[in-house]
């Protein structure tokens, strides 16, 4: 299980503020303990109501949101927060592909299954804070198995990288199998994820992910069917 360190932008800078929304105190305590070990992260507020938590921590850069609060799926709340530009990392035990894809469609920056461990959690939050994608294995499975006819078109390499990452949960092993570098594996996986920013309704968070991916040179606008005029004008495309 290897989580790619993406903390280069935050080390030395202000720690990333995180809000945790979950209706189980034991989960909040557990996640808080995980994140406490990471100097680049600071938990600002926790609770079981997203509105209350975000009122307490309006500056939180990343929201870890349990998708099921008090017995109700809060996809609508997720969409509302994402539309408002909140970077929401969904954190859920509901790991059926439909739910994961629906969360991405609603604008979640990332989807983390509750059984995926600390490394994935920290890496996901750090990536989210920088508008960068992070695809844990469970989400890779949902993407590669997406049966919807209007799913984004992935290249063979992107599909293969997602599949092998889902199977092995080791990017080093995927790299050996595909005879490419780990960095390239991550690029394929992330590129597949970025293509999903075009699925579902538009959200500020999706636009931010896409813009950052273009800025990083991960994708070109024409790769995912965006004309130059639609890309944000003030960001140079590589």
């Amino acid at each position: 299980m290897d989580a790619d360190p993406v903390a280069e932008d935050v080390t030395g800078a202000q720690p990333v503020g995180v809000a945790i929304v979950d209706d189980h105190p034991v989960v909040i305590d557990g996640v808080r303990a995980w994140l406490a070990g990471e100097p680049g992260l600071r938990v600002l507020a926790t609770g079981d109501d997203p509105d209350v938590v975000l009122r307490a921590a309006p500056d939180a850069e990343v929201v870890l949101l349990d998708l099921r609060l008090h017995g109700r799926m809060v996809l609508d709340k997720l969409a509302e927060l994402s539309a408002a530009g909140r970077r929401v990392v969904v954190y859920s035990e509901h790991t059926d592909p439909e739910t994961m894809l629906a969360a991405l469609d609603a604008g979640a920056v990332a989807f983390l299954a509750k059984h995926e461990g600390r490394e994935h959690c920290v890496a996901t939050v750090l990536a989210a804070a920088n508008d960068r994608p992070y695809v844990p294995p469970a989400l890779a499975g949902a993407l590669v198995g997406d049966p919807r006819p209007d799913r984004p078109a992935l290249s063979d390499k992107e599909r293969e990288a997602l599949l092998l990452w889902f199977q092995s949960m080791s990017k080093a092993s995927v790299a050996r199998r595909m005879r490419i570098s780990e960095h390239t594996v991550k690029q394929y996986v992330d590129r597949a994820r970025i293509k999903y920013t075009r699925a579902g309704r538009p959200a500020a968070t999706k636009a931010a992910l896409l813009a950052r991916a273009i800025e990083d040179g991960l994708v070109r606008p024409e790769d995912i069917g965006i004309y130059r005029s639609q890309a944000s004008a003030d960001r140079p495309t590589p």
Partner: protein
Amino acid sequence: MSTESGTAGTGTATRPAVRQRRPERADPGAAATAAHAVSDASDRGARIVAVVIALAWHLAIGLPALLGAWSRLAAPPVVAAGWLVTAAIGGAAGVRLLGGGLPPARRLAAALLVVDGTVFAAAGERQLFTTANWVWGGLAWFFLVVLWRRPLGWLLALLGAHAAIALAAVVLHDATAPADLSRYAMYVYGTSSLPVAVFAGAAAIAALARDRAGTAAAALVVAAERDAAERARRDRQARLALVSGTAKEVLAALAAGDADPADPAVRHRALLAAARLRRLIAESDDVPDPLLHELRAAADLAERNGLPIALVALGAPPELPVEVRRRLADPPTAALAGARGWARLTVVAGPDEVVVSLVTPDHDGPDATGPPGGHGDGPVEHLHERDGEIRWTQTRWRRT
């Protein structure tokens, strides 16, 4: 399928256990085939009736009348030849119908019309309205036989042509007195209505039977799925009872202070119980798929031997030949026997591709599967490798 309480092993890590699958195995094709078989069976009775009526009429009524009026016919050999040709057509079409096929409707209908016109001409004026002019009453039944299962409109058209030929004969033989014309109308009505009724009735009954059989087959599919779902539910409940028992034991021991959370054996027990519970809760397999069933059985076995195992299935595998299924399932199942620590078994299935993968930590022991099978396995590719970190067995089927 049930798991019993686990034994402590040496594992130190676990992997998530999730099962996902949508049921989608109702087979409308099979139901349609069954419906077809039933409608064919009910149609067979009607075919026999039609063929028997046509030939019996031809033999029992047409032939005696023809022979009886032989000397009074204008051209007896021509009328007799027409009778023979019609008998041959009826015999051939009958054999075809009773064999389950359909006769070549257009060609036979055209031949019958030629016979129709010829016999009307050869019967002569005096025998026009007698039974010796056997085409009047008998030919319509042959129309029925050669046009079996064709649209009703074809039969009506053929009967229309038959009526037109008869009218032409009536006019040409100068039998245009009001009494003759009304006789003509009576004959046309009398000889057409019964065949039309039989034809339409048979078609309606066949359609009805097909509908009913279709409904029955669909109901059977639903019932079978319900049974399977019920069985899966009972299995799951039985496993849940066993697994929660194991979990309760561990929790109780921890709560009572009898078990030390720092003890690796205790941790392994907790881990195993959690992995089982998670797998069970996430399992949503309402319709059994043979490939997943085999893999799940292998996973259950490994779990019973104390190996924490995750089984994640995405998508529904298509119908696969037994040989393909065996090549997909055998290598990972064999590898599972040599697994230590933990195992992650995944299935990603689509209509054209199924990939099964088993990943376990690498160890010094020998490979349970032997060397990789390579690419020579037909449509199933088998890869096995170990890189010091993991052992990875992958089988992949692609539709060719």
